[in-house]
Structure formats: structure tokens, C-alpha cells
């Protein structure tokens, strides 16, 4: 599966593990809950660690651990659930997170411009045909009225 990162199409190297799946080799993404519970085991993991945040999680829970987390996945339960837009902003502006923030799940390619403005730099389109729309969507507007992350 391909993803878009910093406006480039690249191959995805990350695997999401549900809370009851054993740790795999390679780059893995776990839930916030699993990260908080199994932190020491995950820190010992050879591959990179990512954390999946959904709209009901609080990114403040990750604030002290961000140096260990190379990717934060914002997993949309529904595209109309705008909480993750603020979570992205908080990660970048309040907690100064510099790693990858990737949008996954049920969001629209029509939302990627706003997502990029609040600090999301990677997108995992749910359909192959959305890759083109996503790339185009990142350049929808050339002007803006208010400050945000970008």
C-alpha cells in the first residue's frame, strides 16, 4: 500500500497491531492504551514505534513520550469528527512533535488541505484512486486568512 508523505508517494512500512496481537518485527503502530501499558516492552522493540490516536484519545497522554514515537497516526472514525484536527494542532504547536503525523481511516481527500495546515504531513488514502485527489487537494488553496501550524 502506498502512502503520501511530504507530498511524495512512498511505500508504507508500518503495521498496526491490535491490542491483543503479539509484537512483530519491523515498524509497528499501537494504540495509545497499549503504548501507555506496555511502554517498556515497546521501548525495547527493534523496529520503530508509532502510536494510533483516535478522536477520543487525548494527545496530552503522549506529551512526555513523544521523543520515542516516530509516527503518530490520526485514525478518523468518521470524516465529520473534527477533533483530530485539534489533536494534530496540539501535537505540533503545544507539544512540539516533529515526527510523522499520518491521517488514516475515514477522512476525505477533500480534507487534506486543512489537515496539512494543522500539521498532518502524511496521508494513507483508503482507495488507490484517492492518491491523485489527495496530491491535488494539498494544493487547493494558495492563500490563507489565519495562522495555524502551516
Amino acid at each position, binding site marked *: 500500500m502506498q502512502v503520501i508523505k511530504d507530498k511524495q508517494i512512498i511505500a508504507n512500512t508500518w503495521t498496526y497491531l491490535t491490542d491483543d496481537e503479539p509484537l512483530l518485527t519491523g515498524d509497528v503502530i499501537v494504540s495509545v492504551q497499549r503504548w501507555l501499558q506496555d511502554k517498556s516492552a515497546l521501548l525495547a522493540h527493534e523496529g520503530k514505534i508509532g502510536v494510533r490516536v483516535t478522536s477520543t484519545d487525548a494527545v496530552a497522554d503522549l506529551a512526555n513520550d513523544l521523543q520515542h514515537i516516530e509516527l503518530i497516526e490520526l485514525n478518523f472514525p468518521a470524516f465529520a469528527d473534527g477533533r483530530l*484536527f*485539534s489533536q494534530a494542532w496540539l501535537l505540533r504547536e503545544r507539544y512540539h512533535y516533529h515526527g510523522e503525523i499520518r491521517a488514516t481511516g475515514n477522512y476525505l481527500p*477533500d480534507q487534506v488541505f*486543512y489537515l496539512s495546515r494543522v500539521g498532518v504531513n502524511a496521508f494513507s488514502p483508503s482507495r488507490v484512486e484517492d492518491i491523485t485527489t489527495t496530491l491535488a487537494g494539498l494544493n487547493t*488553496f494558495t492563500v*490563507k486568512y489565519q495562522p495555524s501550524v502551516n
Partner: protein
Amino acid sequence: MYQYNQDDQTLIDERVAQFRDQTDRYLKGELGADQFRALRLRNGLYVQTHAPMLRVAGPYGLISSNQLRKLAHIARTYDKNYCHFTTRQNVQFNWPELEKVPDILAELASVQMHAIQTSGNCMRNTSTDHLAGVCPDEIADPRPYCEIIRQWTTLHPEFDYLPRKFKIAVSGATHDRAATQFHDIGLHLVKNASGEVGFKVFVGGGLGRTPIIGQVIKPFLEQKHLLSYLEAILRIYNLFGRRDNMYKARIKILVKETGLEKFSDMVDAEWQLIRDGRELTSERVEQIKAHFIPPAYAADAGSDTSFADLQAKHPAFATWVKHNTAAHKIPGYRAAFVSLKAPDSPPGDITDTQLDAVAELADRFSFGEVRSTHRQNLIFADVKQADLYDLWQALEPLKLATPNIGTVTDMICCPGLDFCSLANASSIGIAKEINEALDDLDYIHDIGDLKVNMSGCMNGCAHQSVGHIGILGVDKKGTEWYQLTLGGSSENEAAIGERLGPAVAKDEVTNAITTILDVYIKNRLAEESFLDMVKRVGITPFKEQVYASH
């Protein structure tokens, strides 16, 4: 009024291109109906009973003659020769074809207009006092702040998918004519002890199913902190507003369930972290204020004597002046209403011919500008008193001079069952029936200041819960019934109307209204307004008469 610069124009042009692409993808089947719905709503496009409805933003009510002509052109070319003004100073077209909407938006963009964020769960058009900049009771002109807020809210990347819609209104006068206490955020321009202009901030007001009066969250917010404070409120709302139940998703419910004190603490904690480094500079405010400098008023306008003479000579003109004009801060000028409440026309509607004519009159008499009002009329803000007679004579044959502003027939009314897919009951037909029953202007004028608001469903688009008399259409087993309330107000002493009793049948509404008016006429004290009498005697005397025959 505000003139777009190149960036403003680019933004709305790019928005049109974006929506054109989205419409194409939807029509090709590449974009699902639910996804397209969220996107089209953010461009003002609803799908209604008969056809799509397009809501165009009237930024805080200001419309130039050039823009009016464009609205007329759109009504003629893409619709059935009319449009409708709403309580939030917007304009609605009821019959556009979905496929043509991108073209309509491109037409609007050519005159610096758009339909961005006029619906959907996002920050909506900012509304204000229709007498902004001209009323004698003004503390500061709200329009520059409205424009600053318009820009800040437009395409805000973080707050476009809120739990529910979010409306901001600004008042700059001592008398609140913008229903600010019934907005998600209401801003009153105030001055502190040292004379600096700032804002008294209300939060959590709203109408709809659960009408709630906004509460003061900040008695004095410095001008420079306006946008950071709004951002703090919006971030708390976006993160913590309820998303499990759309009827409990407005900020008013979050404020109510959290409690004002705790909510205010949450906002303050957020605000402390962001307020420094993003102040609204006084240079920026001045730059925007430059767009709203007063027009070139005639210095000798106040020395005119013809105005008094003409009123003495033409009683019908004097009546119109009394009811349809308002005081102006410049001697020799008045603001003149264009009544969109002619007896035989749906409240708030205006035809293409009337729009063109109003544009012409705006150019002749009011510096090429008109405003839409919260009560669904238009107003020329800057008319020389010496010109009022000519203006009145021009408005008369256009059926735009019904002298009923602020009276019982100046009803706020939603489109109701005739157009709206949400409605449970009709409203336009009832308005017409009430108008027919109240065809005696002297009687209407004798009743005086009376605000009747009628909505065809619980969503309350016509603000029935804050009408002095409120009429709410409800569905009872497939038939239309109407619940009446008395004593509501959206002005300074904000109040939610009290229910009179059980809902009345459709064919009894007009009779109930005339009965209420009779009770008022018979029992009022000298100079006592309807609202004051309701406050004094309560609803019982009205209730006894309305339900007497049951």
C-alpha cells in the same frame, strides 16, 4: 464597505474551483452522497423538498448595488425570479439546479460574494446590527471587527468540522439589534474605564430546540486578544463538545453541562497558552477600519426644511417615515427600511425586478449600499432626509414601502413546509392569513411594537422562541398544529417566550393571534407595549381568551 484585495479574490476563486471539482466527482459517482453532502453544505447548498437551496453569505448584512444586481441576475437566470433574505442577513435561492451551482458561485465571486460556510457544522457568517456605523447609540462600529472575524473564520483549517454549527454576532450599540445573546458567541463592543474599546463576550446562547440565553464569559476582553480568545473557545468546543447526539451538540449544551465557571476555566487555561504572540495589532484594525470610513455626507443636510413640510402635506408619507425610518447620527440623515413584508408576499422574499430597482435607489440615495436586517428586511443606511420623499415615492409602486417595520405584520418567518425538508408545518400560508386578517393599518399602528416570529419546525430558524409572540409549527399525527408562546425577546433584556397552552389547529391560528391582540388592546396601560404588558400580567389573561371556546 470592505473591498477585496487580490488574496481575498484568489481565495474565493479557488473555492469555486474546488467546489466545481467536487460537484463533478459527485455527478460522476466518484464522491458518495454523504461525503458530498458535508462538502456542499459548506458551500451553502442544501437539498430541500423540491430542489436544492443555495444560501449566499451577506457578510454582516452589507450588500453593494453591484452585488444586488448580481443577485437579481442569478434570480432571473438560475432561479424563479426571486430570492429570500434570512434572519442571519444571508440570501437564499430556492430553485437552483445542482449542476449549475458552481456557475452561480463563479458569478457571485465576480462581485466579491460567496456561499462559504453558510451551512454545515462549521463557523457561519458573522452577523451584526443593521444600523452599524450610523445609529446614535453606537459605542464603536462593529463592522471592522465583523470583517476581521469573517476572515479568521473563513476556511479555518482546525474548526471546519465542529460538533455542530457555530454562529457569532457582534453588536456595537447600547441597544442589541443583532440577537447576540442567542448566538454561540455574542460580542458587545464596550469601553473600559480608560476609554479603550474591547468586548463583552457572551457564550452558549442559541435558539432551536433548546433555547438558551448566552452567559457572560468575559466582561472585558481587550481588542488585541479578540482572535486568540475566539480560538480558545473554539478549540475547547471542538475537543469537548458532544458528538454523540446532534441535538446536544451545540456549544450551549457543553456550557450548560460543564457549568459556566468550569467552562470558563477551561477556555482561560487554553487562552493563557496561546494569547501571546498572536495579538490583533492596532495597525491591522486600522487597516480594516479604513474600509468603513463614513461616506461623504452633505454638510448642509441638517438645514433642510422640506422634510417636515412634506410630512405635514402627505400623511401617508409621514406614516412611512414614522415606521420605516430610523434615526441617524448625522444631522439631516435617516436610515430607511425597505419592507419585505408586503401583505401578499412571503416574508423576506424579493423579486429580481425589485432587486434591480433597489440597486438603482441605493445608487441614487444611499451611497450605493444596502443592508439586510435580522428581521428579514433591507435598509438604506444613509439617506438624506430631503430625499426621503422621493425614495418613498419610488418604493411605493414597487410594493416595498408597506409602513409596518417593527409591527405585528413585520413577521419573521421561515420557508416552512412549502420549501424546507425539515419543516413539520407551513408558515408562509399562515403569515398570509394573519396579514389578511390584519388589513387595517391604523389598527396595526395602534398595536405598535410587536415582534411575531413563526417557524415551521423545532429547529426554529425564524426564532419563534424569542418572538413577543412566537408561533411554532408541529406535526401531530400527520396534521399541522401550532404552539404559541408569549413574552420572548432577542434584545437587551433577552427572554424566552412562555408557552400559552396546548397547540392550536391550523385554522385557529389567525383567530388566536387576533384574540391575543384584542386582550392587549383592552388591558394595556397608557404607552404600554405588548411585551411590557405580558411582563406585567403574565400569560393568564391571554390564555383565558384564546382557549375560552374550548
